[in-house]
């Protein structure tokens, strides 16, 4: 993996850091010469994942760090998000229900559903006390 294609960012578990994460992601992915659509989907999915981590992985609160790693390899753009919160797999937490009417519409689980639909692959592992979520998009040559 060439160093120029591997990028890391550490943010605190605070919602105020999310915009900074978006700025970082957008800048790198644009520099990789990707389409606006690719920039958008990673920005979206990272926002959804990190917001969920900040909201649910730390029931005792406290100061924690969330690590993001982004890399392009063999036509696949991957974003890995690692946190040391409680065991928490956002992917299997909420089943999705398509809203059938305005009155019944809820947004619980919507963020995860967006990640599943916008990304080509999503993987979660719990390893050595960390939650590691990896989301990937296949980039057309």
């Amino acid at each position, binding site marked *: 993996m060439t160093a120029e294609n591997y990028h890391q960012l550490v943010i605190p578990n605070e919602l105020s850091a999310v*915009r900074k994460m*978006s700025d970082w992601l957008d800048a790198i992915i644009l520099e990789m010469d990707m389409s606006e659509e690719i920039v958008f989907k990673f920005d*979206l999915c990272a*926002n959804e994942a990190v917001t969920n981590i900040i909201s649910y992985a730390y029931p005792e609160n406290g100061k924690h760090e969330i690590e993001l790693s982004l890399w392009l390899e063999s036509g696949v753009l991957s974003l890995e998000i690692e946190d040391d919160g409680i065991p928490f797999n956002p992917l299997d937490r909420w089943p999705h229900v398509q809203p059938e009417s*305005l009155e019944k*519409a809820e947004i619980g689980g919507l963020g995860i559903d967006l990640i599943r639909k916008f990304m080509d692959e999503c993987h979660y592992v719990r390893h050595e006390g960390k939650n590691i979520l990896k989301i990937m998009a296949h980039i057309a040559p």
Partner: protein
Amino acid sequence: MNITEELIDDHIVKINLSGRMDIEGVGQIETKFAGMAASPRAGVIVDMSDVPYMSSIGIRALLMNAKSVAKRGGKFVLLNPQANVKNVLVTSGIDQIITIHSDLDAATASVTP
């Protein structure tokens, strides 16, 4: 984010949103949004043409205001979301429960009592 309103007539308001509709952005406008979408406006058009980004928190803001307008018998529609934002609305199924228009006249007609 910024938010402004224009009265189209006595009963219809066009709410203009601009900027990123993420946690920070929505936080900046949510109170004003609720105020602008409140009675006595029977028709609410939300102009999304200047919103380049929306995450589920943005969807939540739209849904909450759409629900409260519908609950009091009014109509709430979206106007001209950008392509990526429209994609989010369609992918999440929100376009099936909140109508999206690409044209102001059509939007106005659809919310006219």
